[in-house]
């Protein structure tokens, strides 16, 4: 028996060794295949024509617009008609109803199946007419009158008139869903003057009203939508280039070209959106060639790896998503401007972008994001980047030293901004402590508690993020000043006055200097410190063209086409 046992142990060990070797070899092979470097000399990262090259830098909107328009023209000529394109996403469609949809991916779907009076020129933040053909502004910006394009029809052929526009907007006002404030805060009344004319009467003049009209709550919806309640699963759509022909929640969304779209049929007749539970599966399906486009949101490590693949192309552009640090000026010692300025000066944004996000975010030196008109690098101009010497001087002026350190609590939430958040907090701490005069204690709270604490104004320093509601500097500024959701952390009477004035002036030229001034005041006060701006990254098969990414964060499916 003992002999048998000995034999069994020897055999077991031998087999274990062989198994370990085989598994190790197999694993090594697979990992090496997956991580295989690109073929030398092959361009692996390709940007969409005339788009990213201009947007990734902070070049002017004008040049972007010119190039984009050239690209749009290219799209509409000579490309072969291909039946189907499959897009992979890890996002969700929430309510396919503009009265309650309030997330970017659902807005993307709505923007492809519906259209408002205004829309953005793809690849830019410039507005152009959607279903409207002209407009006039009366009574000092209190009244907007729009003429609709003639012969508009819903995807089933039902004629669309000004009454449909009015019905849809009034529906949003009555349902009072999550995005309803985009209408109710500005519009006092909307009425149809005739079948082609819509009149808006505003409660107060706002110069960005045209930008508001490009948001889904203003999209006309098919009469099939329930008039007084949220119609979450309604697929009748609106006046967009595509119509929904099939939707299995969390599985797939099938869109087909709308035969009645006023702009003509898109090049690709059918778009299928496949919903993935995790980014890794999406990446593998792209590599296996089973999807054409991997859209939001690939993991930073996967993006870095996919960029090296010769048979795929990557398109990048700054998104409208920004991250920032909120310092509550009502709490000591943060009521001292010198302390706040020292923190702003010591911050190391580049380290966060490179080390935590592997270069997939960009350092941000203003609350108004890169690429948007009026953006200036106000914080960089005032404090530089990771300026430890300046921070030390400011701290000394505030009465701190190496022996009498500034002791602060830095709050973050691990349950809202992804797994990287703890690392972001750590790098903020690291940069501040590099002064030798600050001691940071990192604290965290679950998102609900975190928001509650923010409302109550009990966190000295906390990390937050912002997705835009409408593409205008106003959305990145006014919402933060004297804001209840931040516990009134930051208030400045002069700033409020400038922002109010800027929101009323009619032209970009008139508004720009005011927002520039606002950004300077923002940097001077250093109560809310911008950190970085998210990038949008899309990876596709090399033959997919017509990809336009811009700060609106919406992908236009109708511009896709296949090359070759």
């Amino acid at each position: 028996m003992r002999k048998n046992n000995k034999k069994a142990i020897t055999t077991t060990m031998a087999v274990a060794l062989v198994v370990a070797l085989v598994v190790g070899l197999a694993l090594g092979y697979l990992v090496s295949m997956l991580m295989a470097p690109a073929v030398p000399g092959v361009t692996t990262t390709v940007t969409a024509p005339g788009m990213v090259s201009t947007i990734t830098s902070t070049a002017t909107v004008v040049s972007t617009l010119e190039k984009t328009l050239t690209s749009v023209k290219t799209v509409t000529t000579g490309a072969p008609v291909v039946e189907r394109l499959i897009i992979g996403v890890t996002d969700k469609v929430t309510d396919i109803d503009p009265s309650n949809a309030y997330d970017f991916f659902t807005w993307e779907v709505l923007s492809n199946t519906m259209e408002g009076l205004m829309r953005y020129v793809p690849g830019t933040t410039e507005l152009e007419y959607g279903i409207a053909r002209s407009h006039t502004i009366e009574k000092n910006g209190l009244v907007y009158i729009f003429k609709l394009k003639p012969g508009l029809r819903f995807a089933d052929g039902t004629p669309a008139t000004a009454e449909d526009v009015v019905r849809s907007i009034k529906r949003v006002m009555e349902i009072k869903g999550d995005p309803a404030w985009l209408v109710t805060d500005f519009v006092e009344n909307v009425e149809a003057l005739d079948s082609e004319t819509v009149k808006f009467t505003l409660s107060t003049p706002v110069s960005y009203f045209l930008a508001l009209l490009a948001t889904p709550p203003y999209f006309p919806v098919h009469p099939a939508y329930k008039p007084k309640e949220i119609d979450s699963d309604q697929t009748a759509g609106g006046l967009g280039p595509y119509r929904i022909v099939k939707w299995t929640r969390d599985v797939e969304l099938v869109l087909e070209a709308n035969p009645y779209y006023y702009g003509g049929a898109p090049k690709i007749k059918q778009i299928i959106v496949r919903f993935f539970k995790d980014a890794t599966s999406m990446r593998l399906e792209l590599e296996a060639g089973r999807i054409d486009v991997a859209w939001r949101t690939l993991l930073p490590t996967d993006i870095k790896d996919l960029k090296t693949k010769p048979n795929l192309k990557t398109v990048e552009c700054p998104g409208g998503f920004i991250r920032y640090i909120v310092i509550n000026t009502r709490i000591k010692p943060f009521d001292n401007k010198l302390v706040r300025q020292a923190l702003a000066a010591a911050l190391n944004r580049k380290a966060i972008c490179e080390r935590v996000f592997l270069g997939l975010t960009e350092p941000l030196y203003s609350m108004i994001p890169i690429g948007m008109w009026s953006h200036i690098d106000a914080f960089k101009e005032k404090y530089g980047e990771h300026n430890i010497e300046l921070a030390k001087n400011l701290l000394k002026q505030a009465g701190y030293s190496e022996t009498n350190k500034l002791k602060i609590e830095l709050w973050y939430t691990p349950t809202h901004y992804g797994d990287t958040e703890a690392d972001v907090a750590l790098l903020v701490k690291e940069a501040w402590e590099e002064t030798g005069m600050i001691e940071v204690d990192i604290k965290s709270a679950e998102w609900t508690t975190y928001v509650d604490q923010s409302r109550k104004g009990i966190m000295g320093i906390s990390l937050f993020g912002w997705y835009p509601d409408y593409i205008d500097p106003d959305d990145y500024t006014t919402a933060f000043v004297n804001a209840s959701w931040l516990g009134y952390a930051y208030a400045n009477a002069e700033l409020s006055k400038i922002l109010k004035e800027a929101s009323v002036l009619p032209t970009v030229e008139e508004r720009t200097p005011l927002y520039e001034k606002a950004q300077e005041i923002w940097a001077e006060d250093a109560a809310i410190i911008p950190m970085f701006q998210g990038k949008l990254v899309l990876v596709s098969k090399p033959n997919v063209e017509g990809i336009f990414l811009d700060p609106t964060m919406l992908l236009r499916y109708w511009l896709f086409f296949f090359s070759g």
Partner: protein
Amino acid sequence: MVSLRIYIATRALLTIPTIIILLTIVFAIMRILPGDPVTAIVGMKAPPEQIQELKKELGLIDEFGKPIPLYIQYLNYFSGIIKGDFGKSLIWGKRPVIIEILEHFPATIELSIMGFIVSLLIGLISGVYSAHKYSSWMDSTIRIYGIISYALFIPWIGMLFQMFFGVQLKILPVAGRIDPGMEPQQITGLFLLDSIITSNWPSFISSLKHLILPSITLGIVLSGIFTRLTRGAMLEVLSQDFIIAAKARGLPNRKILLHALKNAFIPILTMMGLQFALLLTGAILTETTFSWPGIGTFLMERINYRDYTTVQGTVVFFAIIISLVSLIVDLIYAYIDPRIRY
């Protein structure tokens, strides 16, 4: 026979307090957790009226804005579940939770059944073979397999399969339940079964291809315990006198092994019941790895969206299902083994 009936009745009655305790624990946990669910749902920019409205929907305050006492909330919650009302989702159309669950459950059942079959096949065959070849190199290999497979992490092994069969060989899909546009007509919600019923063979092939990698992944991870259990039980049975007698009579090996397996089956059957809970847990990880649209991924997603009523309803649903399965297994066990009685 009378004692069996008493056993069945007692066991069935015991399920009721088990479920009540589970429901109470779920109710308590949802209220003990830090943070305000209302704030989580409406977001930071919500006006106070919207917050009040949602509190009303959640049954936290009455029509006049007064807080409803906890015990009343508990009674409301309890009576709702008895009536089959698991509440309404707080997001996306506020659909009844039970409908959402029933939409996602067939996908999990399909994956679980296939995973279970794979695990049982691997476990039984390897266990019996290992016992038959006791102390050989094959026995050692299978024993090591039993340990390794039990320790495997589903997303890791799943990803290896995805990389090899999906990306390298390109012979099997790496995610999803069926190819776009191939869904069979919905009858049971089980795609394989539905495509057979409707004779939709392209759908059958597509859903089978999608099912292979997830069910093998799940099956392998769960098979280790069956391998070890079968081997142990078989070794015990094979050393008993009636097997020696059978061998002495010159019965073929195959017949002897089959005979031994029947006798070794009781502990395996018990483990099959216990594995069901593990199967559902494993299914959650497998579903996430393979983007399988089942109840596991659904639950994870709703946790992320802080859809409290759906999370509560789904957990209760899981608890009830597991209690019922455990009851059924116990009853079968009692039926097979007459020694099991109260």
